[in-house]
């Protein structure tokens, strides 16, 4: 399989390191999402993999072979660009068959393969269309088909769905995942949309400021964030300053909270940050005092915005469990056992 390994890969532009000493080992055949805010170095990392940038130091291996200094056109990867980069002077079929034409595949074979790929992305019979005749979603599919044309060792996608509207994007996420599962190609998608990452990925890699913050299965990263950045970036988290007294006791705003066995503690005793997901916030008879500042009825859920000692806390309920409170009322907050993560400050 085409396992992917990065050994201390660094890319500097002048004084700033866009990618800073990244070491990763990813098993082949997986669907990986590179997730992070804009400017975190995820696109640069993708371009390093594609050979469009050369690393300042470090090594890139695919299937055990060193690719660090192999020029782009000899890597046999597939790539989908953010702008899609479809050739406007070629037809849909010619676009899809371009990698084959470059490799000297005979015309008839090219044509057959293009048709096969187009049917894979549900564009059968569109080979002779011009690019400008297609809708946004159709162009997306052509770009995906083209990236897969040579059975690439590695399939790289840079924010591939960002130009689509919300509905179509969700649809394409599912479809992309299904195609990948069918073909088993090692796939790396760059995205800043955490929902997209959670929908598609086997493995999520969260990046910030050029470094990998956490790598793991989506729910693992969601449930068990490695640090405050990941907790804040993946989904919504309430981050409260606290003090860890001993491994089983927390102090928040002067109140002691005993921790349960399922709660995760990733900090040494002393100042720490308590991370709780909105769905793990409860209203109880007693707990941390908080004032209701806003109530959002979102249909599928109800969101309460609360103020606890100047800290904003968000709580999420299903409509059936909607608490009987109004704006301005004071309530008591507790956190569901197992939903608490204590992080280093």
């Amino acid at each position, binding site marked *: 399989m085409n396992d992917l390994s990065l050994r201390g890969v660094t890319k500097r532009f002048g004084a700033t390191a866009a990618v800073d000493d990244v070491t990763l080992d990813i098993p082949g055949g997986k669907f990986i999402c590179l997730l992070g805010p804009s400017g975190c170095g995820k696109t640069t990392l993708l371009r390093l993999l594609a*050979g469009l940038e050369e690393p300042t130091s470090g090594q890139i291996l695919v299937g055990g072979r060193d690719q660090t200094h192999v020029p*782009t056109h000899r890597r046999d990867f597939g790539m989908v660009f953010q702008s899609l980069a479809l050739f406007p002077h070629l037809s849909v079929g010619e676009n899809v068959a371009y990698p084959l034409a470059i490799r000297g595949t005979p015309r008839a074979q090219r044509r057959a393969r293009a048709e096969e790929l187009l049917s894979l992305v549900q564009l059968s019979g569109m080979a002779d269309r011009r690019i400008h005749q297609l809708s946004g979603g159709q162009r997306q599919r052509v770009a995906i088909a083209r990236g897969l044309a040579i059975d690439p060792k590695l399939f790289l996608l840079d924010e591939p769905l960002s130009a689509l509207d919300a509905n179509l994007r969700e649809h394409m996420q599912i479809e992309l995942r299904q195609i990948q599962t069918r073909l088993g190609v090692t796939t790396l998608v760059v995205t800043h949309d955490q929902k997209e990452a959670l929908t598609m990925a086997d493995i999520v890699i969260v990046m910030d400021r050029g470094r990998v913050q956490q790598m793991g299965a989506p729910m693992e990263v969601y449930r068990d964030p490695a640090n405050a950045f990941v907790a804040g970036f993946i989904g919504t988290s309430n981050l409260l300053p606290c003090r860890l007294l001993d491994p089983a006791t927390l102090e928040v705003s002067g109140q002691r909270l005993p921790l349960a066995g399922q709660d995760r503690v990733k900090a040494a005793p002393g100042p720490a940050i308590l991370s709780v997901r909105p769905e793990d916030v409860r209203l109880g008879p007693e707990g941390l005092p908080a004032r209701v500042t806003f109530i959002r009825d979102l249909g599928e859920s109800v969101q309460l915005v609360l103020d606890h000692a100047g800290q904003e806390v968000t709580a999420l309920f299903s409509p059936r469990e909607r608490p009987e409170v109004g704006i301005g009322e004071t309530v008591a907050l507790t956190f569901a056992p197992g939903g608490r993560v204590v992080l280093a400050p």
Partner: protein
Amino acid sequence: MKGREATTPGWLGILPGTALVVLFLIPFGIMLAVSVAQRETGGFYQWGFDLSGYQRFLSAFFGGVLLTSVGIAAGTAAIAVALALPFTVILAGLSRRTQTAILVVLLSVLSLSEVIVGFSVSTLLSQTAGVGNILAWLGLTAEARAYTPSLFALMTGLTYLSFPYAVLVLYPPVARLDPELAQAARTMGASPLRTFFSVTMPLLRAPLLGALILVFVFALGSYLLPQVLGRPEHWTLSVHITDQAIYQSNLPFAAAMAAFLLLVALAMVGVALLLAREKGDRA
């Protein structure tokens, strides 16, 4: 960011580089050499170092010629740019189809040979066809008369020639102006004219200056209209260069004048390019 290899191979520069050096730089070098060569009556010239061409150029007569050239070119530039600026601003606000049609007209006029422009304008201003005829027919003048050759005819011709050039030089910066700036001024109560003078003009100061200079150089290069539409006292440096080179067979003197004109033009174009770059940096 650049990839690891330039997009085009370096040897691509060999052919154009050679062509431009051999067919453009070397001719200029020869011209400069000729400008200090010795004139040989009857033939062309003999190599040497003779500054008489430059000395002769310092006479009162050619001082007058230079003054005339500069005056006529500057006047043309001022008139053409003044007419072109509002034209370009309005043009840039029209629909693409209309813009295209007007650009076709401008390009067509701009490509017209000076010979044809000279011929057309002289016909228009002649006694037997055009304006003179029409005025007489309307009874405004007692009898048809010719308006050419004259300074008026020359300036008309030069403006006709330079106007499309001025518009096309102004077009890119004007078209790049954010139309919402002018719209914002309008919503704040400025009249269209007020908007033009208080928003559009100040934004275009650098390109305007650049356009003035480029049109000036363009008009300075006119060699035919002064002969066709003007009187001998309106002959510009360009005309005298042609005259010396072809009819007086005094190549060294022509080359000396051309070298001088080259200096003036290069300095001017340099300033215009600097202005354009400054504007680009700020954008």
